[in-house]
């Protein structure tokens, strides 16, 4: 018999895991086919895996293939197994294929993915619990276990999608996953790429319709109202009427603006890290001294943050005496405790410039790929890290003369000696903390590979001097002292700085960064601080984002693609709109992309039509119908339910922000305003105000409640859109204490009789032509060029092994190109166009396909047809 499988087809998992059962009973050949190859002659739609039996018959159902393997081994069918398999086919599969499609093809995550399968997962968990058996159909592993395990594995192997509370499902899944046949099947199908290994297959499949009954969608418009219990409603109403506030949780908080809203003592700081090679290079380019360059750019940076309304308590810099003092102190303590090593390093020295050429001061031919302009630390073409002395034909970047290899003494931080302390500290810190998964992963992989001594000095002039004899003309490596900048910036802000930085018991330190900075914040600095033994406050929550792409490619300063901090203010789009959109697409959990069209869409739909519309209507009704005074409110059960919904969403907002899920918490704000709009729409106060006494009272209640929701939203918005928040609060004349505190309950902050101010629209519509001209200006249309470059720079199929693939946006863009080109070719063929012309277009198509394959990390020649393994 012959088994046909396809790369990334999820059905291969259970089938391969079950295949072992048939070993010795029949000869099994395995062939790999393309996802669109029709193996079964009588099926219109391609289907894999398929088992062709020796009789010529086909089994095209995954469960039936597994069942056949089990039957061959002498297993007997039973009711319970049948029941699980029927459930798998009718209930689990529709939910699961939707979830996988959202996750893998559409790049959704979290509840958007889990939402559709949660009910099914709970069902399995309950069944396991009820039976009190380790396996689905009894004491031993059987067909049902393999089929369900195989179906679930791609999703559940990511712990994020295996809810912890489903403990029975958890242990069942772990037991099976560790068994040899399952493990082997998982490796074969997912190739250590996780669920993304399914992408090539899934993206060729039609989008599965969501499991019936419940629409699973990202768009909150269709959000189902949560079901509320009587108690929830009662509690919300009591809080509203009596102004009760539950005790705030005793948990300090990071998101600084949010922390302040919760009245937690917060210090919010940032700064420019100014030392290092990059500064020296830039100074030379601009003909300034390093200090002048730093002064110039510090102001530019500070202005950008000011424009964006980022409310740092202090925005400092590293070129200060405090920095030298604290860095040297930490160094001395490390030296005294034996955590500093000395070693000789071979380095390039330019005799004409009379100095060692660090990092980017040297260029030459890449020893790996032969690229002519490789930098001293890394090759831009092949991306490999280079040891500067290995460069062929090295050149001093300043004077272009050829440097010579000289040895130079350097200091090393003895990380291997500190590794144990680090692990102990991580063991205490990580569990239960809010470190993002990517940060945990990066630290774990560094530790897994073992720490090596790290050079902390450089042959430069621009840096913190090294206080050690023989090192007078050297400075500390920027990554040794940059993270100490946080301490020195605080020291410049307050002489009480040690209350923040040598107080780990009372201070929770949250650090925000992109994932490339994780090793320095989560590993190198903690090692320095632990080795210094001075009771330093170490990072409690390391919050790392993924990367933000620009339109269909990467931001590139050198090619002028993208909008950079200083350009945002020239776009005519207010800072708050930028803040809103950038947080709306904040790359939490996975890369995201900035898109002009999407920005326009979100501004016009979410801000203008949803949030702005609601707040404006609420205020206008008070002005127009009630002379600017908040009317009396007499709550009906409908109003009470709304109160409870708003309270529930407010709670969710708090929970999310406490977990630093900034992007998701923004959705809660929009949901509340959506509830509000719906409420106004249903109750039609503009009609009732003209009706009977009772109708007018109803109009009053609806207006009063709506304007109070608007007041609540103004406070919730503060971390996201401070200017808009202040504008709303001024329009509604929100009493000052209510402006700056956010409680966990929704209270009546604008009581009957409160007079509001003048109400005016909050947001402007973004127009298509305006956005189109911005897109042109910031080079989003240079896709072709980007792709071209990408293709040129892409390494050979080695990528596939390292698992590096292009960003999903790039892949998507390429796929669109392929589709477009495919259509051109088809059209030409249909018109029976000139042969040469067709051939030219076909060549283009093939080239695009190759680029796509490279971008997806696959070898370019995808085998067509059947291939024997």
């Amino acid at each position, binding site marked *: 018999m012959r088994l046909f499988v396809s790369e990334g087809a999820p059905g291969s998992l259970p089938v391969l895991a079950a295949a072992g059962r048939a070993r010795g009973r029949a000869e099994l050949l395995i062939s790999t086919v393309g996802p669109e190859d029709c193996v079964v002659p*009588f099926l219109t739609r391609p289907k894999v895996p398929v088992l062709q039996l020796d009789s010529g*018959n086909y*089994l095209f*159902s995954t469960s*039936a293939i597994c069942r056949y393997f089990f*039957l061959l081994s002498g297993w007997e069918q039973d*009711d319970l197994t049948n029941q699980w398999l029927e459930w798998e086919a*009718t209930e689990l599969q529709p939910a699961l294929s939707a979830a996988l499609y959202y996750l893998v093809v559409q790049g959704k995550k979290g509840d958007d993915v889990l939402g559709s399968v949660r009910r099914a997962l709970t069902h399995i968990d309950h069944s396991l619990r009820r039976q009190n058996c380790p396996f689905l159909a009894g004491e031993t592993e059987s067909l049902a276990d393999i089929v369900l395990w195989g179906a679930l594995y791609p999703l559940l192997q990511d712990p994020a999608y295996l809810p912890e509370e489903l403990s029975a499902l958890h242990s069942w899944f772990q037991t099976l996953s560790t068994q040899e046949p399952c493990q082997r099947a998982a490796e074969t199908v997912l190739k250590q790429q996780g669920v993304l290994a399914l992408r090539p297959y899934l993206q060729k499949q039609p989008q599965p319709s969501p499991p*019936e009954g419940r629409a699973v969608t990202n768009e909150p418009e269709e959000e189902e109202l949560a079901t509320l219990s009587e108690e929830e409603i009662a509690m919300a109403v009591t809080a509203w009427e009596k102004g009760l506030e539950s005790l705030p949780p005793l948990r300090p908080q990071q998101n600084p603006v949010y922390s302040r809203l919760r009245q937690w003592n917060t210090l919010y700081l940032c700064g420019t890290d100014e030392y290092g090679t990059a500064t020296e290079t830039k100074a030379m380019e601009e003909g300034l001294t390093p200090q002048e360059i730093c002064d110039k750019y510090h102001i530019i940076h500070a202005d950008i943050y000011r424009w964006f309304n980022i409310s740092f308590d202090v925005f400092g810099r590293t070129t200060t005496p405090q920095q030298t003092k604290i860095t040297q102190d930490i160094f001395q303590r490390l030296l005294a405790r034996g955590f500093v090593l000395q070693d000789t390093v071979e380095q390039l020295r330019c005799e004409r410039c009379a100095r060692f050429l660090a990092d980017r001061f040297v260029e030459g031919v890449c020893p790996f790929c032969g690229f002519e302009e490789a930098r001293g630390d890394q090759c831009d073409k092949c991306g490999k890290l280079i040891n500067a002395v290995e460069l062929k034909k090295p050149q001093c970047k300043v004077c272009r003369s050829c440097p010579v290899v000289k040895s130079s003494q350097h200091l090393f931080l003895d990380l291997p000696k500190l590794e144990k302390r680090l692990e102990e500290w991580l063991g205490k810190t990580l569990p239960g903390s809010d470190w993002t998964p990517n940060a945990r992963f990066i630290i774990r992989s560094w530790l897994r590979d073992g720490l090596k001594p790290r050079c902390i000095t450089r042959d430069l002039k621009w840096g913190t001097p090294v206080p050690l004899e023989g090192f007078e003309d050297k400075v500390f490596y920027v990554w040794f002292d940059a993270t100490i900048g946080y301490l020195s910036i605080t020291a410049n802000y307050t002489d009480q700085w040690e209350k923040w930085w040598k107080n780990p018991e009372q201070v929770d330190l949250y650090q925000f960064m992109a994932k490339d900075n994780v090793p320095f914040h989560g590993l190198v600095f903690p090692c320095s601080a632990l080795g210094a033994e001075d009771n330093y406050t170490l990072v409690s929550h390391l919050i790392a984002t993924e990367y933000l792409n620009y339109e269909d490619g990467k931001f590139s300063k050198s090619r002028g693609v993208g909008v950079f901090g200083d350009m945002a203010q020239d776009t005519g789009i207010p800072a708050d709109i930028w803040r809103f959109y950038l947080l709306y697409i904040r790359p939490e959990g996975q890369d995201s992309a900035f898109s002009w069209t999407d920005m326009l869409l979100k501004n016009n739909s979410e801000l203008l039509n949803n949030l702005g519309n609601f707040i404006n209507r609420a205020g206008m009704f008070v002005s127009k119908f009630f002379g600017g005074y908040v009317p009396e409110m007499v709550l009906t059960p409908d109003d009470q339910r709304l109160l409870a919904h708003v309270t529930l969403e407010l709670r969710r907002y708090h929970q999310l922000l406490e977990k630093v899920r900034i992007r998701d918490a923004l959705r809660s704000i929009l949901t509340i305003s959506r509830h509000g709009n719906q409420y106004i729409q249903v109750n039609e106060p503009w009609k009732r105000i003209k009706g009977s006494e009772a109708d007018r009272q109803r109009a009053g209640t609806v207006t009063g409640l709506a304007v109070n929701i608007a007041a609540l939203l103004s406070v919730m918005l503060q971390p996201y859109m401070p200017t808009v928040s202040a504008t709303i609060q001024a329009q509604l004349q929100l009493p000052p204490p209510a402006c700056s505190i956010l409680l966990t309950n929704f209270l009546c902050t604008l009581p009957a009789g409160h007079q509001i101010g003048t109400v005016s629209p909050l947001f402007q519509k973004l127009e298509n032509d305006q956005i189109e001209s911005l897109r042109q200006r910031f080079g989003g249309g240079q896709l072709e060029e980007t792709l071209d470059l990408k293709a040129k720079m892409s390494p050979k199929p080695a990528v596939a092994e390292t698992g590096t693939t292009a960003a999903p946006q790039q892949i998507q863009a390429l796929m669109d190109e392929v589709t477009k080109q495919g259509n051109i070719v088809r059209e030409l063929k249909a018109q029976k166009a000139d042969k040469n012309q067709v051939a030219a277009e076909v060549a283009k198509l093939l080239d695009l396909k190759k680029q796509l394959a490279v971008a997806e990390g696959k070898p370019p020649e995808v085998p067509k047809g059947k291939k024997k393994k």
Partner: protein
Amino acid sequence: MAAAAELSLLEKSLGLSKGNKYSAQGERQIPVLQTNNGPSLTGLTTIAAHLVKQANKEYLLGSTAEEKAIVQQWLEYRVTRVDGHSSKNDIHTLLKDLNSYLEDKVYLTGYNFTLADILLYYGLHRFIVDLTVQEKEKYLNVSRWFCHIQHYPGIRQHLSSVVFIKNRLYTNSH
């Protein structure tokens, strides 16, 4: 036809005298059977297979490993594809596939009548009744199989008998 009604039909065709009571679960009205000696069984094909065993007609589930797997495959096909919210288009794809599959077969497993034939017949009945003469001719093999099953003793019961014309009307149909 509701699943419970279909299972009652099946009981009769299997010669089971004592009728079971079925409850229905969820939006899709999945049948549930409370058995005397154990937990309840849920799902049309699960219960159907159970009834077959109750009637001591295990051969209807297939006799070899291959046949058993094929029977279950078509039972799954029945509840996922035939019972799915099929659009008109889906049904035609389904009939086309089935037509091509049945080209060299008397029954779904080949030469033996099984539970798969019974349940596929019950499931397809509502679509086949609505086919035009031309369509029935287009899906000639399905028509032949369907006509054969509806005349199999004890299967059709109160369901309407679908008329198939024996001589071809549309000679150049494709």
